[in-house]
């Protein structure tokens, strides 16, 4: 089980490294979307400070969405997905591996980049650290739930738009507690409750979503 997991994650990361354009473009998308808001709402620091958590989290959601269609599309087209489905281990294990690899190549870079963006919104130091922590805990759930949408819309025309329509409503709890954590810290309240719920969402996502994703993949492979 573990060997399969390691192989899938290693293979996907190597593929991601060979095609860095995709990772970098998602990151730049994140930066650009976030940088648009001050141009839209004006540069006043205290306004930006209040907007920052929501804006950053929505941008993180959208940036994750960008890289989801490719999660299974290439494997579906070149036949490797079939081989994964025909492997001795349950497909959900391979899906868990791919979700992990997707998080490492999309959610994690976003998280590491967010302090840079936090400065743009003049967030106080403790809020910036809470933002990084919340993103770190919350983004795995985005990859796990997003994988379900990616599997359901595999091979469909207009899959990208449909994918966001299916997945964004399911992202709302993560958005609420993620942005809430940073907001609470900025407001001087403790964000312990938010982080624990966020952690629960991620854990539940990582454990249950792969089974739904595997079922959706088998439907697509028929």
């Amino acid at each position, binding site marked *: 089980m573990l060997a399969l997991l390691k192989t899938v994650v290693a293979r996907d990361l190597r593929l991601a490294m060979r095609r860095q354009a995709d990772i970098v473009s998602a990151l730049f998308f994140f930066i650009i979307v976030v940088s648009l808001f001050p141009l839209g709402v004006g540069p006043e620091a205290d306004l930006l400070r209040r907007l920052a958590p929501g804006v950053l989290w929505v941008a993180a959601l959208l940036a994750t969405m960008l890289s989801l269609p490719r999660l299974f599309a290439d494997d579906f087209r070149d036949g490797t997905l079939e081989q994964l489905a025909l492997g001795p281990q349950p497909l959900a294990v391979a899906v868990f591996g791919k979700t992990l690899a997707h998080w490492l190549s999309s959610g994690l870079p976003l998280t590491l980049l967010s302090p840079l963006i936090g400065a743009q919104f003049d967030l106080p130091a403790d809020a910036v650290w809470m933002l990084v922590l919340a993103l770190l805990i919350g983004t795995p759930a985005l990859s796990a739930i997003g994988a379900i949408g990616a599997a*359901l819309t595999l091979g469909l*025309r207009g*899959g990208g738009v449909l994918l966001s329509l*299916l997945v964004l409503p399911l992202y709302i709890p993560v958005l*609420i*507690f993620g942005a809430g954590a940073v907001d609470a810290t900025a407001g001087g309240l403790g964000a312990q409750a938010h982080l624990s719920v966020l952690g629960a969402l991620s854990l539940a996502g990582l454990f249950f979503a792969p089974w*739904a994703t595997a079922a959706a993949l088998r*439907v697509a492979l028929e």
Partner: protein
Amino acid sequence: MNNRLLNWFKFASPQSFFPLAGKMIPGFWALAVIFGVAGLYLGFFVAPTDAQQGEGYRIIFLHVPAAWMSMFIYLVMAFWAAIGLIYKTRLSGMMASALAPTGAMFTFLALWTGAFWGKPMWGAWWVWDARLTSELILFFLYIGFIALQAAIDDPRRADKAGAILALVGVVNIPIIYFSVKWWNTLHQGASVSLTKAPSMAQTMLLAMLLCALAFWMYSVAVALMRVRGIILERERNSEWVKQQVTMAAAGR
């Protein structure tokens, strides 16, 4: 026990369910009208004026049943989805697809009547109340379900993909509801919220229940009508559809 199960499965085949649904539809329409008339009469002619909200509160006789139905239909859809995945009966997938548009309509009506109720009471068409917000998200889930099934050509795959989405959705609804409720109390405090329904006089409650029953009968009737259309569409190449259609033509 298994012969009861057996004939349930007999009816689960689209061919034998088609005429059965045809016979049941008028019955459900009748029930819907009876309950509807009774409910509306009680609600608009018998129920007393509310102390705080005057006559405006009567909108709840439509808003609350619509909200209940929007939630109930999604649960029934998830139920048929599960049955379809476990027993691989084709009819259950069709039932889920037949219910979705009606569920989406009731969600829209719940939002519409909620807005029309919020405007006079709180001065704004849209109130970020926890239940209204969850209703809005439920609307997105319905639209996602319908859009997914519309994007897939092969009906069998559409059913299965829709079923998985419905089950994932039904697991997420309580999570979404509680996180929205937390978000609402956090930012706004419970001052502005529709959850504080006016104290329910006996006739008001009865009127609302009757309206809810009417909406339920209506949903069953409409879903059965739509499922007949879906059955014809999917089994258009089969023999029994040929006789069914030509017999109908001869009858007319």
